[in-house]
């Protein structure tokens, strides 16, 4: 494997050097020279206007993957309640399956599952594989991965997706390592290359400064985790069950509430006794009070250095409350101990994608932008008209937040009463 610069076309323009994150390119006597720091990320190839750079010598195998069909979604649940990202992935999975003209499978593991899972069938799923057993009561990666691997080996999906939650980001790497296939973390967009019928997995890297599109070569399934709240939930009317799997269907046992979905359900066979866990879960406590899960909210109102001190966060809280949202913060505010770490948005805090993100007194350091720039609507309130936050905002107000925010709260409250 080698990366080469064609010196007959290289002009020494240094575009490639400017995009290289690894200090791997030098311009010597008017030509680009790539040194040993190179990690083959390909950024320079994309930047070069003269197509002078190429990576050669990658062994490309042309294996036959025709046995692999369908899109399978791991549907995460906690205490029998389906995580939102499950519905988001089913919606995305349906689109991919339609393009590939193939089936959408869900796979759901849990214990004492009940009507709460009914929503799954609103997303055009062709078949839901279920395992309902005490061994799946807690989300433990070793028992879950064992059954997922069995399912992947048996049903051979071409694409396998899971949520990039704390659990998914531990479970899916384990599954991929067992199956020996690639896994792309934290995707924000998925599409199909319709010439090759392969999955294009796009994800932010370098804290969201760059997007990289990644493919899975020489192994199947093509696996990806997808960030929660990035894909849209889109229920679909009942679809025809995919022809290829229609007749290949066994129901092992039933509960009454499964009846109406029975043509779309299959209970998985497994040897219960062979599932042993290395984890002893001693306790679980729900997070309460101060610590919150920012990603649960559609509206986040964040405060930064411009807030000036811990007491002024009450103003931010009041605006968040008026909009039914939650308080976020920049690293500067958290590091000053004005507010606790679970509120921190950004590269070393939470990555969020709410419908509305209101940044108050946040200049917009690139690490902060990395954590919130995929929000649907961004509103920035800042004194400094040159603050970088305005570069990514949809709506901006240059002004003193202590003049703006109280007026806005008042206006929202009065507006609601009309």
């Amino acid at each position, binding site marked *: *494997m080698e990366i080469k610069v064609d010196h007959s076309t290289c002009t020494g323009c240094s575009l490639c050097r400017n995009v290289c994150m690894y200090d791997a390119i030098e311009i010597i006597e008017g030509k680009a020279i790539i040194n040993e720091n190179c990690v083959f990320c390909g950024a320079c190839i994309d930047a070069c206007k003269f197509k002078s750079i190429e990576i050669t010598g990658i062994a490309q195998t042309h294996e036959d993957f025709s046995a692999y069909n369908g899109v399978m979604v791991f549907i995460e649940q906690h205490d029998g309640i389906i995580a939102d990202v499950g519905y988001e992935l089913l919606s995305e999975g349906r689109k991919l399956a339609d393009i590939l003209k193939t089936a959408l499978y869900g796979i759901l593991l849990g214990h004492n599952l009940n009507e709460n899972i009914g929503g799954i069938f609103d997303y055009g799923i062709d078949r839901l594989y279920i395992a309902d057993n005490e061994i799946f009561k807690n989300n433990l990666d070793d028992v879950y991965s064992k059954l997922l691997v069995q399912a992947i080996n048996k049903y051979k999906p071409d694409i396998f997706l899971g949520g990039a939650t704390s659990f998914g980001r531990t479970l899916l790497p384990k599954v991929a390592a067992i199956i020996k296939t690639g896994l792309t973390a934290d995707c924000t967009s998925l599409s199909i290359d319709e010439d090759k019928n392969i999955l294009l997995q796009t994800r932010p890297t370098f804290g969201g400064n760059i997007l990289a599109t990644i493919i899975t070569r020489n192994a199947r399934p093509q696996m990806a985790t997808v960030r929660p709240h990035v894909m849209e939930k889109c229920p679909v009317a009942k679809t025809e069950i995919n022809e290829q799997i229609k007749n290949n269907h066994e129901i092992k046992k039933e509960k009454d509430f499964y009846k109406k979905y029975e043509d779309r359900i299959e209970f998985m066979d497994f040897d219960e006794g062979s599932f042993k866990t290395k*984890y002893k879960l001693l306790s679980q406590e729900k997070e309460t009070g101060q610590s919150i899960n920012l990603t649960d909210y559609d509206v986040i109102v964040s405060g930064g250095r411009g807030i000036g001190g811990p007491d002024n966060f009450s103003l931010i809280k009041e605006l968040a409350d008026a909009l039914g949202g939650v308080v976020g913060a920049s690293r500067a505010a958290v590091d000053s101990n004005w507010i606790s770490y679970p509120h921190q948005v950004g590269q070393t805090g939470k990555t969020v994608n709410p419908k509305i993100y209101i940044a108050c007194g946040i200049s917009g350091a690139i690490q902060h932008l990395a954590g919130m720039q995929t929000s649907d609507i961004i509103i920035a309130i800042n004194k400094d008209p040159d603050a970088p936050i305005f570069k990514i905002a949809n709506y901006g107000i240059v002004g003193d937040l202590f003049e703006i925010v109280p007026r806005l709260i008042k206006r929202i409250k009065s507006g609601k009463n009309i």
Partner: protein
Amino acid sequence: MSEIFRIIVCIKQVPGTTEIKINPETNTLVREGVETIINPFDSYAIEEGVRIKERFVSTGSSADDIEVVALTMGPPQAESMLREAISLGADRAVLLSDRVFAGADTWATALTLKHAIKKFEKYNIIIFGKQTLDGDTGQVGPELAHMLHIPFIGYASSIEEIDNRKMTVKRLAEDRYETFEIRLPAAISVGKDINVPRVPSLRGKLRAKNEKIPVWSASELDMDENHAGLSGSYTQVIKIFTPKHLYEVKMMEGGPDEQVEELFGKLKEINVL
């Protein structure tokens, strides 16, 4: 403890993103300077490794019986980061460096680390930062743990108890704290909430300067070159681009009252209220 208790901390040298700016005209990245840093979360991993050692020492173990090793895969200049790890309290460091390691995805990285870890006759705990600043995946830890057949707990927020056979680890999942007991050897990944990393001591800095750092290549790891680096990767980057912003910012004009009124109108328009 009579035999060695070894804590291996896997770290990565990453470009410091503070150095990165976006050129607003071309929407491309501009790097100023060439600063590289220890991946920020990895400083917490090193600190936690050193604290585990200190815990054992405080309960009567000899410091000589507990070893904190910093391990990285990277280009030759990653050695400077390993010296920093030693100044922060690691006892020694090993650099995995070979041209054939370049371009590795998380799978190939985990496999290379596995080969290296297998070279130590014994290991008890492996610690990772929860994700890197550049790749951001957090996948190498769980993949490596699987390859070694040991349990892995991601996003650990504290090690409640530890002895030479097992440990109790608390971690924050989305909406809940979970406390697990796991037998050693085991692997964890840590975030910012687990500790506050110390600053290097003068003694540590001196030791860092003089310490010999071995470099292991693919042949020393007994690794097939086709399994390392880009050749050994299942995933491949096919395109890199900068995010495009499709909209222009709409600035609210006038004094505070007018600005608020206009914004309120926008919020109504998009059905927030």
